[in-house]
C-alpha cells in the first residue's frame, strides 16, 4: 500500500493563521513576520489519481475557501527562500484523533474503499524578519510554546512522516511481580519503579496478602491495587488518621482527627439532615430534590495534573469526565461549570521553570479544551471563574462541574448475580495509563516526558451517544447499576461495581483502538467516553438496539458472579484472582501528622499595596486587574444558551457585559416555574493567610452569590473541592485540616449541606533547582440553590434613575478606616447575623421589592458599585463619608429598591444591619469617596484584556 500526502491551504483569509500569528506576537516572537497554517492529511491505501481527486475535493477541502494538492510519499521538498521555514506537526501514534476515523468512514461512504488508514497534521509556513540570522534556531525556540506539544505531537522542519500506531499483536504476556520476599527498601523501590505511589505500609499490606495466598501477584493485580488504592481513587489523605499539633504561643494542643471526610464534611451534612437531600457522598454525584417529578444532581471534579502537561486534552477530558459522573447517576447533563486558576500571564520565557509550559499557552489550551468538549456535546457552560496567582504557574487548576436532571426513582445501584458486565462507548487504547497514580504525585521537569502516556484526548460526540443511550436505557429499566470509567479505567469501574458480588471478566473481549495492548494496559487504560453497566442477560438485546441507533459500541465482557472475588482473564487464563474485600477494604489507614501554626506568615504582594490616596486610580486599577476584569472574552467562547434554560446569564445588563453573581437555569422539559441557581466561592489569597477563615469566606461567597439572584437560602447544597500541596508536609496538612474544619462550622452556621466533594493533592512542582512550587491552598465551593419562581430572579445591573441603593449586612467592618485598601492582611469574618440578612433579602426578592442586587466581594464596595453602574449604564451617588470602600467583607450586598418600596423593604430588615447608602442617577457617573468617575471609564478599565 502507498501513503499519499494531501495538503490543503486557504485561498480566502484564514482566521486560524491570523490567530497563530497574534499568539506568536503575544508570546514575544516579534521576528515572525508572516505565518500560514495549512492542513495535512496522510492517507494509506490503494487509490487511483481519480480517487485521490475525489477524496480531496469532496471530503478534505472547502471548495469555496480552500485549494489542495497531493503527492505520493515521499513528497517533494518545497524551496521557499532564505527567510522562510516549513514546520510540520503530527500527532504521536496512539493519541486519539477523532478526525481520522471520520476520514476513513466518509471515504468508504463515497465509495472510495481503497482508503485504509489516515493521519492528520499541520504545516506552518513561517516567514521571518530577514535580519534574523539563525532561522532554524528561532523556529526551534518557538515550536514548543506555539506550534506543538511534545507530549502528544512531534514536529519536523521540512516534510514530516505520518505516524500510524504499530500493528503488533499482543503477546498477552503477564509478568509475575516478586513481592513476597522483598525487604522494606525493595518494596519502596518497587512502588517507585512502577510509579505506584504506594507507601511502605501499603506495600507491606500487599505483601502480606499475597504471602497468605502463597504466590506473587501478576502485574495486572499489582497495577489494579495501585490504582484502587491511589489518592485519586480512595482519598487516603481525607480518610487518614491525623495527629494534629496546634500551636498557640508556646502551647501545643494535640488531638486526633479520624478522617477529615467523616469528621468535618459528611458529619455536617448528617447534622443538618436536610429533607431535600436525596443522596450525599455515596454515588458518582450528589442528588437533591427538585419537584414532584425530578431530582437534580451535581458534581465537580478537578483535572489539574493532566492540564499542566497537555492543557487542551487535560481540560477537554476533565469536562468529559465530570459529565460521565452525572451519567453515572442516570441523569441527563444540563449545565457545566468551569473554574480555572492560572499563573500570571505576562511573564517572559526566560523566567519559566524547566519543563513547564508558558502560562498563556496553558490558559489558551485549557479554555479551548473546555470550549471544545462542552460546545460539541451540547451542554451549556453557565457558571465559573478565572483566577490568576503566581502559585498556579506550573500547576494550573481546572475545576469542571456538571449538573444533571433525572426523573425520580429511576437510578439503580444494585447489580444482580448473573448480570452481564457491559462496557459502552469508546474503544480502549494506551491513553491515560496510570493516570490515577500520576495525579497523586508531585510533578518535576521530567513529568511531561514520563507521563506522556497519561494524556487523554476526548471525543465529545462519542459521549453524546452515551447520553442518548443511557437516558433511554434508564427509562426502559435496562440496567441494574451504572458507573463511569474514570481514573483507573476498567479496573476501577468494574472493580468498584463488583465489590459486593464479585465478577468474572475476559479482557480479550474489550474492543481496542489498535492491537498490541498487554492485559494490564487494557485493564488500566483510562481511554475516555466509557461507561460500565450491570445488565440482566435478557435486557442486553434491547440495549444493543439502542446502541446501534446512536452509533455507540456495546461490549459484553463478563458477568457478576456472587463469588466475592474479582476474576479477570485474558484468553481464558486468570490474570487477576483476588478477594474483593482485600482490594476494597484492605488498604491500611494512613497515619499522618499535621501542624497548625498560630499565625501564618503573611506578606502583602506588590499588586495589593495600591496607594490609597487616589481612590479613582485605585478603583480603575482594581477593575482592570486580571482577577476582577471582565472574563467575557472567555465566556463568549462557551455556548451558554443551548438547552434554552439560561434565565440569568453569566453576563448581564444593558450591553450584556457585566458579571452576574450567579446563574439561574430553568431545566428543559420541566413544568412550572421552578429553577436552579449555580454559583461558586473561591479565594486563594485568603487561603494563603488563614485556611479556616478562608473556608468560611468562600462558603459565604458561594451562598451570597446564589441568594443575590434569588436562591432560597434554606435550600442551597454545596460541593467541596480541595486543591492543596503535598499532605505529607505537616504544615500543608495543617492548613487542609483547618479548611475542612471551617467547611464544617460554616455549613452548620448556614444550614447548607455538602452533597459531594473532591480533593486534588500534591499540586506541587519540583523544579530542577530543587525548589518546590506549591499552589496556594485552594478551596472551591460550588453551590446549587433552588428557587420556586424563576420570574422572581434578580440581576445585578442598575435598573432606573431615582432608585435607592441599600447596603445590607454588617458594614463597615470594625476597625476599618479609609486607609485600609482592599483588606489588611487578615481574612474577614462572617458577621453572626448573616443568615438572617440572607433570609430577609430573599423574602424581599420574593415580594418583588428588589430591582437589582450585587454582592461585595473582591475590591469591596467600590468595585460592586462600579459593576452595577456598568451593567445598567447608569450612575450611582454614594456619600463621601462612606469609608473603606475597597475593604473586602463577608455577608454584604448592595440592593436597588424603588423609592415607593423603600419603607416596605426597610421593614424586612428590622433589627438587621441595613444602610441607605446611595442613589441611582441617570447621569452615568459613579460618585464615591469624593471622586466622580464616568461610567465610560469604568467600562474601559473593566474590559482590559486578561
Amino acid at each position, binding site marked *: 500500500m502507498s501513503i499519499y500526502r494531501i495538503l490543503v491551504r486557504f485561498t480566502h483569509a484564514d482566521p486560524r493563521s491570523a490567530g497563530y500569528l497574534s499568539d506568536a506576537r503575544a508570546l514575544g516572537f516579534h521576528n515572525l513576520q508572516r505565518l500560514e497554517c495549512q492542513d495535512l492529511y496522510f492517507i494509506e491505501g490503494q487509490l487511483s489519481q481519480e480517487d485521490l481527486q475525489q477524496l480531496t475535493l*469532496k471530503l478534505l477541502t472547502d471548495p469555496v475557501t480552500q485549494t489542495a494538492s497531493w503527492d505520493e510519499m515521499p513528497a517533494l521538498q518545497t524551496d521557499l527562500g532564505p527567510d522562510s521555514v516549513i514546520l510540520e506537526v503530527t500527532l504521536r501514534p496512539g493519541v486519539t484523533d*477523532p478526525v481520522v476515523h*471520520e476520514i476513513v468512514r466518509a471515504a468508504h461512504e463515497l465509495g472510495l474503499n481503497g482508503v485504509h488508514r489516515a493521519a492528520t497534521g499541520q504545516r506552518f509556513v513561517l516567514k521571518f524578519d530577514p535580519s534574523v540570522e539563525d532561522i532554524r534556531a528561532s523556529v526551534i525556540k518557538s515550536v514548543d510554546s506555539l506550534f506543538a506539544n511534545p507530549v502528544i505531537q512531534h514536529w519536523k522542519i521540512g516534510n514530516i512522516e505520518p505516524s500510524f500506531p504499530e500493528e503488533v499483536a499482543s503477546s498477552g504476556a503477564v509478568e509475575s511481580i516478586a513481592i513476597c520476599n522483598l525487604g522494606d527498601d525493595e518494596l519502596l523501590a518497587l512502588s517507585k519503579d512502577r510509579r505506584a505511589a504506594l507507601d511502605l505500609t501499603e506495600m507491606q499490606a500487599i505483601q502480606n496478602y499475597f504471602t497468605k495466598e502463597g504466590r506473587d501477584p501478576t502485574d495486572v493485580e499489582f497495577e489494579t491495587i495501585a490504582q484502587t488504592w491511589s489518592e485519586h481513587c480512595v482519598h487516603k489523605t481525607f480518610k487518614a488518621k491525623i495527629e494534629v499539633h496546634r500551636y498557640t504561643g508556646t502551647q501545643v494542643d494535640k488531638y486526633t482527627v479520624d478522617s477529615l471526610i467523616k469528621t468535618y464534611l459528611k458529619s455536617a451534612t448528617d447534622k443538618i439532615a436536610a429533607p431535600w437531600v436525596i443522596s450525599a457522598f455515596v454515588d458518582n454525584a450528589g442528588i437533591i430534590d427538585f419537584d414532584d417529578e425530578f431530582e437534580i444532581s451535581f458534581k465537580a471534579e478537578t483535572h489539574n495534573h493532566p492540564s499542566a502537561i497537555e492543557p487542551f486534552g487535560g481540560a477537554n477530558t476533565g469536562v468529559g469526565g465530570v459529565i460521565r459522573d452525572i451519567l453515572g447517576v442516570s441523569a441527563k447533563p444540563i449545565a457545566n461549570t468551569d473554574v480555572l486558576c492560572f499563573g500570571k500571564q505576562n511573564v517572559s520565557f526566560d523566567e519559566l521553570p524547566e519543563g513547564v509550559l508558558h502560562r498563556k499557552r496553558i490558559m489558551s489550551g485549557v479554555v479551548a479544551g473546555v470550549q471544545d468538549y462542552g460546545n*460539541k456535546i451540547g451542554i451549556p457552560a453557565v457558571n465559573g471563574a478565572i483566577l490568576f496567582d503566581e502559585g498556579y504557574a506550573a500547576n494550573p487548576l481546572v475545576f469542571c462541574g456538571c449538573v444533571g436532571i433525572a426523573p425520580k426513582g429511576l437510578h439503580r445501584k444494585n447489580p444482580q448475580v448473573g448480570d452481564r458486565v457491559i462496557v459502552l462507548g469508546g474503544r480502549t487504547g494506551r491513553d491515560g495509563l496510570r493516570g490515577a497514580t500520576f495525579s497523586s504525585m508531585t510533578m518535576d521537569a521530567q513529568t511531561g516526558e514520563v507521563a506522556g502516556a497519561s494524556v487523554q484526548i476526548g471525543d465529545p460526540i462519542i459521549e453524546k451517544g452515551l447520553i442518548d443511550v443511557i437516558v433511554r436505557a434508564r427509562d426502559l429499566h435496562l440496567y441494574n447499576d451504572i458507573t463511569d470509567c474514570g481514573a483507573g479505567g476498567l479496573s476501577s469501574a468494574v472493580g468498584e461495581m463488583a465489590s459486593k458480588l464479585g465478577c468474572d471478566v475476559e479482557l480479550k473481549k474489550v474492543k481496542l483502538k489498535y492491537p498490541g495492548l498487554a492485559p494490564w494496559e487494557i485493564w488500566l487504560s483510562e481511554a475516555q467516553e466509557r461507561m460500565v453497566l450491570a445488565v440482566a442477560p435478557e435486557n442486553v438485546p434491547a440495549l444493543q438496539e439502542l446502541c446501534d441507533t446512536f452509533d455507540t459500541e456495546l461490549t459484553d465482557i463478563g458477568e457478576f458472579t456472587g463469588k466475592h472475588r474479582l476474576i479477570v482473564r485474558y484468553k481464558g487464563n486468570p490474570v487477576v484472582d483476588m478477594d474483593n474485600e482485600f482490594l476494597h477494604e484492605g488498604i491500611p489507614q494512613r497515619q499522618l501528622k499535621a501542624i497548625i501554626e498560630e499565625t501564618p506568615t503573611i506578606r502583602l504582594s506588590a499588586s495589593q499595596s495600591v496607594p490609597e490616596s487616589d481612590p479613582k486610580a485605585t478603583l480603575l486599577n482594581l477593575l482592570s486587574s486580571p482577577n476582577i476584569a471582565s472574563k467575557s472574552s472567555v465566556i463568549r467562547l462557551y455556548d451558554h444558551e443551548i438547552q434554552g434554560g439560561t434565565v440569568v446569564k453569566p453576563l448581564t445588563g*444593558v450591553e450584556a457585559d457585566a458579571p452576574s453573581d450567579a446563574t439561574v437555569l430553568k431545566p428543559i422539559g420541566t413544568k412550572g416555574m421552578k429553577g436552579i441557581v449555580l454559583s461558586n466561592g473561591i479565594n486563594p489569597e485568603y487561603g494563603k493567610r488563614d485556611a479556616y477563615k478562608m473556608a468560611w469566606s468562600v462558603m459565604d461567597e458561594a451562598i451570597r452569590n446564589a441568594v443575590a439572584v434569588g436562591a432560597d437560602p434554606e435550600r442551597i447544597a454545596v460541593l467541596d473541592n480541595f486543591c492543596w500541596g503535598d499532605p505529607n508536609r505537616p504544615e500543608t496538612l495543617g492548613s487542609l485540616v483547618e479548611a475542612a474544619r471551617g467547611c464544617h462550622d460554616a455549613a452548620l452556621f448556614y444550614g447548607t449541606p455538602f452533597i459531594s466533594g473532591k480533593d486534588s493533592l500534591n499540586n506541587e512542582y519540583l523544579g530542577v533547582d530543587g525548589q518546590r512550587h506549591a499552589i496556594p491552598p485552594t478551596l472551591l465551593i460550588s453551590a446549587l440553590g433552588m428557587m420556586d419562581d424563576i420570574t422572581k430572579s434578580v440581576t445585578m*445591573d442598575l435598573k432606573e434613575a431615582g432608585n435607592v441603593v441599600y447596603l445590607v449586612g454588617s458594614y463597615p467592618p470594625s476597625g476599618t478606616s479609609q486607609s485600609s485598601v482592599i483588606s489588611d492582611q487578615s481574612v474577614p469574618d462572617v458577621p453572626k447575623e448573616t443568615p438572617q440578612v440572607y433570609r430577609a433579602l430573599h423574602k424581599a426578592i420574593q415580594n418583588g421589592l428588589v430591582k*437589582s442586587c450585587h454582592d461585595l466581594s473582591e475590591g469591596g464596595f467600590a468595585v460592586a458599585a462600579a459593576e452595577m453602574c456598568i451593567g445598567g449604564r447608569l450612575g450611582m451617588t454614594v456619600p463621601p463619608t462612606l469609608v473603606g470602600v475597597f475593604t473586602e467583607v463577608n455577608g454584604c450586598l448592595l440592593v436597588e429598591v424603588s423609592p415607593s418600596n423603600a419603607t416596605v423593604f426597610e421593614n424586612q430588615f428590622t433589627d438587621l444591619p441595613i444602610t441607605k447608602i446611595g442613589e441611582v442617577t441617570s447621569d452615568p457617573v459613579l460618585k464615591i469617596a469624593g471622586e466622580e468617575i464616568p461610567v465610560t471609564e469604568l467600562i474601559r478599565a473593566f474590559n482590559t484584556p486578561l
Partner: protein
Amino acid sequence: MKPQALILQAHGTNRDYDIAEALTLAGADPHPVPLNDLRAGKKRFADYQMLVVAGGFSYADSLGAGKLLALDLNSYFNEEISTFVESGKPVIGICNGFQALVKSGILPGGNWGLVNGNSSATLTFNQQGHFECRWVSIKPASQTCVWTKGLQASIECPIAHGEGNFQTNHQLLITNLQSLDQIALTYIHADGSPANGDYPANPNGSILDIAGICNPQGNVLGLMPHPENHIYSHQHPRWTRGVKGNSGLALFENGVKYASQI
C-alpha cells in the same frame, strides 16, 4: 391535525430538544428521529409535513462544519429529500443544519446546487477566528420564504457558532440571491439599521450581513442564529430590565401554519 415535524438527529446533533420545544409551542408535533432509523427504513421522510435539520456538531465538525452530514444527506437520502423539497413542504436547517444544507447543495438550491460536485457557497470560519455565543438581532427580509413571509418584527436570539461566515466565489450567485428574494434573514443593529458588516452586530463577517437564506421556491430556510432559544420571555438577556417578548417563535409559527395548509 397538527403538522408532524421530523427533527433529524445526526451523530452530534444537540439542539434537537430546543427546536422540539419551539415547534410544540408553535403548534406542531415534533419527532426527533435518529439518522440511523431513517437509514434502516424504520422511519420515512414522506410521513412528515416538516423537516428540521437541527443544530449541533454533527461528526464533531470534522473536516468542516456540516460537511460530513451533508455527505450523509447526499449519499443516503438524496431522493427522499429532493422529493420532500420539491413537494413544497417546509424545511429548516439551523446552525449546523444550515451548514449541512449549504454543503450538500440543497441551499442555495435552484441553479446553484452542486457545481461539478462542489457546493457554490459555504459557511466558513467566523472573521473573529473563534466560536462565539452572543445575542444578535436579525431582520426577516424575504417574502418568498415561507418561514419569514409577512414577518414584520425583528427577531432577537443567540448565535453559537464558529463557522457561520457565509461566502461564495460566484458574484452571479449573490446577484441571484438578491433578485430571487432568497436572502431571508439579515443581521441588523439593535436600532434596526443594517449591520453593514460591523462586528458584533454582524457576528461572523457574512457577506451582505446574511444570517439566513432560502431556496428559490422559498420552502427551505437555512439560518445560523437560534430563534428556537427565544420562545419564552425569560430567555431574553434583558427580561429583568422589562424587555418582553419571545420573538423567535413567530418564525416557527409561520412555518407550522404553512405546513398545515399544504
